């Protein structure tokens, strides 16, 4: 009797254990509790969207509370504040990250926990393609899960201005250059606005590099496997010079002083085109109340006919989990949640695209639909500035400011030599 009871209990326990083992971690996550700390540096509309995402997670997991740790910012680059927080002993479970070079720094410092096991157990292969997994990996180990991405080769324009000038979104580089005179005649004296005070002037160079030399060359340049003085790099910068010499923009001094946030800049009546990240979409929709596809739209970077027109620059944001976080179970569940339908759809409503197949694509507006279509049909390369070592990226931005002041071949040679000199010591 005793033995039979024991055997029955043993069998029951075994069955229960087997059942538990078979249950997906998503289900186990329902019983999560405790505080989840997120190193969160986004502000404005992005910050509000993030709060909505967190609120949804808490709604699904009432036992969990979320505390955001917001590091001090610094002119568009939050890494300084994030490093200060981490070195200062701040313990967080999740880090929001958009810089692959910073991920490597975190990994080298032993701060990040690999997520390959979670990838398998949560079944993220069903939601994210291998290319997104590769994007968050270092030497075959996955550390980041991408939850949003943006097309950085999309040129924003104001529909009414192009209509007034009697032009349609230019498809080729020649059409693009030719549109400047028409826009000027229509009363828009600086058809392209380039905010060059900090970093946005590098966007044009980065897409031109892709379109003139391809993603492989751009990747090699990022890793300094080819020098900055390589003819391919010079060709890209000379194309940039061509645009400036065609009268695209305001005086260099004006470009170098522009720092206004993109919504303010976008409301300027002087300019029509802007090459900027996809977060512009969220800002225009939510901050300025403009209608996507009606008041503004985008077209993909014009073709150059140099054999690399199927390339685009992209950015992405990912989540990393830490080795010392106090609530790893909740952190892992949050990673699963961020690529799930609830979080993806919140982001889509704000105007952001998620790489997850769980996102309801019908929620994307016309602008995001163009962007996601362009990215999916392109060979993509991550934003060059986010791949370069910190020391080099600063010199790169300053030297391109010099280039803007006097875009001649001699300046191009001088500027590239200066960046190369810095690169020689930066890796």
């Amino acid at each position, binding site marked *: 009797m005793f033995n039979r009871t024991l055997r029955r209990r043993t069998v029951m326990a075994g069955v229960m254990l087997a059942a538990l083992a078979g249950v997906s971690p998503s289900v186990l996550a329902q019983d999560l509790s405790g505080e989840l700390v997120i190193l969160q540096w986004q502000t404005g509309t992005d910050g509000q969207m993030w709060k909505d995402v967190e609120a949804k997670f808490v709604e699904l997991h009432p036992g969990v509370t979320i505390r955001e740790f917001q590091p001090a910012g610094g002119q568009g680059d939050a890494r300084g504040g994030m490093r200060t927080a981490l070195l200062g002993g701040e313990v967080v479970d999740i880090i929001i990250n958009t810089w692959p070079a910073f991920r490597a720094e975190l990994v080298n410092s032993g701060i990040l926990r690999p997520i390959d096991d979670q990838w398998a157990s949560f079944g993220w292969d069903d939601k994210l393609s291998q290319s997104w997994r590769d994007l968050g990996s270092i030497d075959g180990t996955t550390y980041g899960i991408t939850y949003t991405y943006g097309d950085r080769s999309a040129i924003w324009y104001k529909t009414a201005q192009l209509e007034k000038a009697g032009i349609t979104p230019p498809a080729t580089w020649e059409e693009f250059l030719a549109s400047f005179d028409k826009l000027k005649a229509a009363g828009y004296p600086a058809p392209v606005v380039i905010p060059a*005070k900090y970093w946005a002037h590098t966007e044009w160079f980065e897409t031109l590099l892709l379109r003139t030399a391809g993603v492989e060359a751009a990747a090699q340049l990022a890793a300094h496997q080819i020098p900055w003085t390589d003819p391919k790099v010079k060709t890209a910068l000379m194309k940039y010079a061509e645009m400036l010499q065609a009268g695209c923009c305001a005086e260099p001094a004006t470009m170098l002083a522009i720092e206004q946030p993109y919504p303010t800049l976008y409301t300027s009546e002087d300019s029509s085109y802007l090459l900027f990240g996809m977060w512009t979409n969220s800002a225009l929709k939510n901050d300025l109340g403009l209608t996507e596809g009606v008041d503004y739209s985008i077209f993909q970077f014009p073709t150059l006919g140099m054999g690399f027109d199927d390339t685009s620059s992209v950015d992405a944001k990912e989540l990393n989990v830490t080795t010392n976080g106090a609530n790893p179970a909740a952190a892992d569940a949050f990673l699963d949640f961020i690529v799930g339908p609830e979080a993806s759809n919140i982001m889509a409503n704000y105007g952001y695209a998620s790489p997850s197949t769980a996102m309801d694509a019908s929620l994307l507006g016309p602008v995001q639909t163009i962007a996601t279509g362009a990215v999916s049909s392109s060979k993509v390369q991550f934003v060059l500035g986010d791949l370069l070592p910190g020391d080099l990226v*600063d010199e790169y931005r*300053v030297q391109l400011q010099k280039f803007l002041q006097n875009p001649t071949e001699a300046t191009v040679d001088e500027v590239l030599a200066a960046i190369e000199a810095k690169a020689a010591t930066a890796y």
Partner: protein
Amino acid sequence: MTRSVAEAVTDRSGVPSRAGGGQLRLPITRGWRIKEAPAAWLLIAPVIILFGISVVYPLIDTIRLSFFDIKGLAPAKWVGIGNYVTLFNDPTFRGTLVTTLIFTLGTTAISVSLGWALAMLCAFAPVHTTPFRGMMFVTFGISEAVSGYMWLNILRPDKAGLLNAIIGIFIPGYAHSWLGDPNTALWALIFVASWSGVGLPLMLCFAAVQSIPKTVLEAAYMDGAKPTSIMRHIMMPLSLPGVRVAIFINLLGALRAFDIIYVMTGGGPVRATETVGYFMYRESMTQFKLGYGAAATVVLLVAVLVISIPAIIQRTAGAK
């Protein structure tokens, strides 16, 4: 026999009273005696502790960090004076030294000379110029970040900028990007910093003029001196101590300038306005090269000491 508080602390000759053996009698608690030196240390201890925590420790740690190569979150590596060698071979840093020198001398010269001149003029009608002096001093009290944002709008590159709009009255359509042009950005910053700093020299020089004995001025008037002569031969020379203090304070402030540069230009365009203070911030906080940034900090500290120590010695030379 117990004396009053005033008697206990100071005898008729003004010397603290001692109850023999170098002991100071504290009158508040009858019969309590405490040695003078420990009492002094006890009283000064809170200040020393706070000074140690907030100044000495960070200073020593900054000097220590300057001997390490610290990049991002990577472990620190001892490099000895390597950071200093790199620093003085770094053309960017050498450029910031020149920029700092121009900025420091420019703002000090403009704000002190303007403040001094205004003080001279105000001294002729001290009562009637009180509101004016008050307003000028307010600029000194405004945070540099706030005044930076205010001046950003005044110096806007388009026609909506106040300065461009005023010039546009005389030159229609005029628009210059004061902060975007590397040739004008530093001078625009110097002007703004001088505007912000003119209140203090004005008050110091005005106070120095006010301390001139009235008998000296009355004697000059009775001798038939004109106001311009009084200003030139009496007020200006006798207000020099105030001017020296103003120069000293302005030099130190300008050397350490950061807020206004951060807000208005971010060190640009093309590093045209990057001073040592901003370089230090950029290297330490943006590039997160803490050791290198610390070395720049130490260099700046030495520059401040080079100015401060002679000035302090000179100011305290007569003190006993």
